[in-house]
């Protein structure tokens, strides 16, 4: 397990590079892992079922080959990579897979997943696109159906008590992530963006207790640091979707920028919102996942009646983080073919302008092959901020 003698970041790196090795070990011990994509799958329910959630991820260094035989190339490149790795057998240790309605790429490929992969359990969680009262009723029912279906699969009914326990464990995890982010407020930040994203990614391959343990150790290690691993430089914010590899962040930091905050799916978007305790746990989960996760997928009506007011409501989290983490510039990183984020680019651009925050918009595919193209853009952007 975690080797205390070593620097904890070696362990993190291991988990990151050999993603899933711990899950394979645990599987040998008889544990069941349920894979998932996107931030919308309630992990608490999976954990409460006695199985362990595992975030399946892509690999930008691996060319997409087999996946293309079953899935069109007009799908989100990140998602294609995840699919490709899966059909290549990378995640064969999983017992099941849960896919939510995060975007069209997910919905439309559900059949290809469920027929193309050897898992014995598949489940699709529908997520409302609007957030009114009836949406919550619906989502409660949908989550309840998920709970029942998973319970049937594991052969053990999921009780409210199980759910409460899981909610506690995940809230704890989110507190720790918050604490890690706090360490980025120093200038230069005490923890680099690369380290942080690697840690969070590692965490998403572990059972929640182990993830909590790992984050604790990272916290201790970093707090004990005399000095930052980074030099002072422009403080960069990453705004975007499913960014589960460190290459972009690493690139920014190599070129002298410091990544200090984000909205990415395996960053703040997913890890900041907590679940309310007390009350009906399913309802609390429905509330957390539908309302508290700020994803472009969910439509929130323009109550202000003006464009400026609307973007302030929709993207307010960006402004808050930008102030909190004293950001100098932002990178809006969107994948080609990503509809939910793609349509927001003009509005987000306008929002950054209203904050007076320089913005670099990158449209990318999920491949190591584009790094050299990104390099020039990122370097020029950092030079632009530094003018």
């Amino acid at each position, binding site marked *: 397990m975690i080797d205390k003698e070593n620097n904890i970041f070696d362990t993190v790196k291991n988990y990151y590079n050999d993603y899933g090795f711990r899950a394979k070990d645990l599987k040998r011990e008889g544990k069941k892992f349920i894979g998932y994509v996107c931030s919308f799958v309630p992990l608490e329910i999976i954990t409460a079922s006695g199985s362990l959630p595992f975030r399946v991820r892509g690999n930008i260094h691996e060319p997409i080959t087999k996946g293309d035989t079953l899935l069109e190339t007009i799908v989100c490149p990140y998602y294609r990579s995840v699919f490709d790795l899966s059909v290549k057998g990378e995640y064969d240790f999983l017992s099941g897979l849960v896919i939510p309605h995060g975007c069209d790429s997910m919905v439309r490929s559900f059949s290809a997943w469920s027929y193309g992969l050897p898992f014995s359990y598949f489940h699709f969680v529908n997520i*409302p696109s*609007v957030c009114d009262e009836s949406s919550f009723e619906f989502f409660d029912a949908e989550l309840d159906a998920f709970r029942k279906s998973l319970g049937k699969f594991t052969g053990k009914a999921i009780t409210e008590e199980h759910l409460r326990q899981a909610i506690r464990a995940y809230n704890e995890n989110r507190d720790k992530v918050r604490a890690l982010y706090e360490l980025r407020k120093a200038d230069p930040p005490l923890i680099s963006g690369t380290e942080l994203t690697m840690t969070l990614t590692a965490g998403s391959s572990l059972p929640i207790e182990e993830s909590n343990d790992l984050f604790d150790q990272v916290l201790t290690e970093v707090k004990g640091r005399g000095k930052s691993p980074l030099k002072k430089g422009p403080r960069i914010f990453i705004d975007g979707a499913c960014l589960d590899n460190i290459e972009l962040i690493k690139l920014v930091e190599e070129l002298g920028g410091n990544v200090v905050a984000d909205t990415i799916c395996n960053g703040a978007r997913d890890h900041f919102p907590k679940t309310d305790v007390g009350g009906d746990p399913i309802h609390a989960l429905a509330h957390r996942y539908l309302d508290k996760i700020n994803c472009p997928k969910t*439509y929130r009506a323009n109550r202000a009646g003006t464009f400026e007011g609307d973007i302030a409501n929709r993207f307010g989290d960006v402004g808050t983080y930008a102030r909190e983490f004293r950001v100098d510039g932002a990178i809006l990183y969107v994948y080609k073919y990503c509809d939910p984020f793609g349509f927001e680019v003009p509005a987000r651009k*306008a929002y950054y302008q209203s904050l007076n925050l320089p913005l670099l*918009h990158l449209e990318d595919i999920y491949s190591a092959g584009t790094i050299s193209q990104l390099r020039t853009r990122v370097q020029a952007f950092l030079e632009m901020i530094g003018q």
Partner: protein
Amino acid sequence: MAEEQKEAKPKKRMTATKAAASIGPMVKEFITGTLQAKAEGKQKVAYTFIVCHHEEIFRALDVIPVWTENFAGICGAKRDAERFLQRAESLGLSRSLCTYALCGIGFDQWREELGQMPPEAPWGGQVRPDFMISSGQILCDPRSKWYQASQQFMPDVPIYNIDLPYPLFQENRDHREALGYYHQYIVKQLRGLVAFLEEQTKKKMNYDRLRELVDLSDRTWNLIDETYKLRRAAPCPMGTGDAMNTMVPINFMMATQKAYDFFVDLKKELEEKIAKGEGEVENEKYRLMWGGGLPAWYALNDFNYFNSKGASFPVETTYRMVAPLHEMDIPETKDPIEHLAWRWLGYWTFWYDKAKKRPGSEPDVERLINWIEEYKIDGVVMHEAFSCRTWHVGLIWQLHQLAKIYKPIPVYMIGKDGQKGKVYRELPSLILESDIIDITSYSEVDTRNKIDAFVETLESIRANRAT
């Protein structure tokens, strides 16, 4: 990466049926109609999307729907979408996103900037709406993001976003278990829509009128189904090329007497043609199915090219947005809203039970298989439009499944007489790649080469079978 540039204006397409030929003027009429209504200001005009199956609600409240996908399609068919697409691109929207939406947003931005219609706007242009009804359903992300993006340029125009989900097909899950809460949700969403429209129009919903309209479109659904089934005849009297016209009443005119009458006429026309043995193609050699994908609107002439090679298209999965109501088990209800919600769910889950019975199948595949048999299909043609995931992701997989079911696995079909028969079939397929309205993605030479090769393939299979 490669792209092709704008081409000359398309030649007018020859249709096989009179009915299809009458569509052009009809569309023009209702586009100019929306402009006129706006000018008169008596009726409210609303941006909205097709395939939401609740136009009865608009019509009952005298709201005029402006189908934004339709307008984008017209720009595409006139080969005049590029300038609007470029405008959208210059706002920061990627070309990889739904080009209907890009065209619409580009147009809206331009119109709002000018305070009047952009120069030489197709058919007078798209009217500024009083409000917009988008639909965040399980169907298409762009439809819940598009109007939000347009609102940047007209923030005073309110949006009502309505969720219309349906349970996704899952092999080992009985969708019926979920129908209850889906239905409840949809009903509440539709009631929300009614409330929103009442507020906007300052009118009260007349539920008797609504019920009549729902009844009218129910009858139209059945009539369309009957009419389209006539295309099973050999030679096939009307092909997909024409159906890309006759989709207009199905998608833009439901709940009107005009749509109903249109299909009465079309049905008569088809019956006459069948009686005379007239086909879409003079000498029908191959029967193809348009097995998926929205058409390339600027290249509808490709259907005629297929025709010129003796290939007809008796059936298409695209835009056949109705299913026979009597084959669905829709619970009886007096409440038209409840009925709409059931009809919605019935439509989307129509193939679920059948699909469950065939190993390896899935609703979309099941529909292909059934229609291949019913319409005696020799080959499947699909179009992968790069910018729309909704209708174009999953096609390759469907063909894979189809190939599996049709080749190594014998297919058991229940014949008319109730006898089980074993069929082996090999079914060639062709995937065309371009876009719905972005002509830069299209190459006529390339497409026609592919069509040639495909028809030669059909020919060689037939020759082989003969020996």
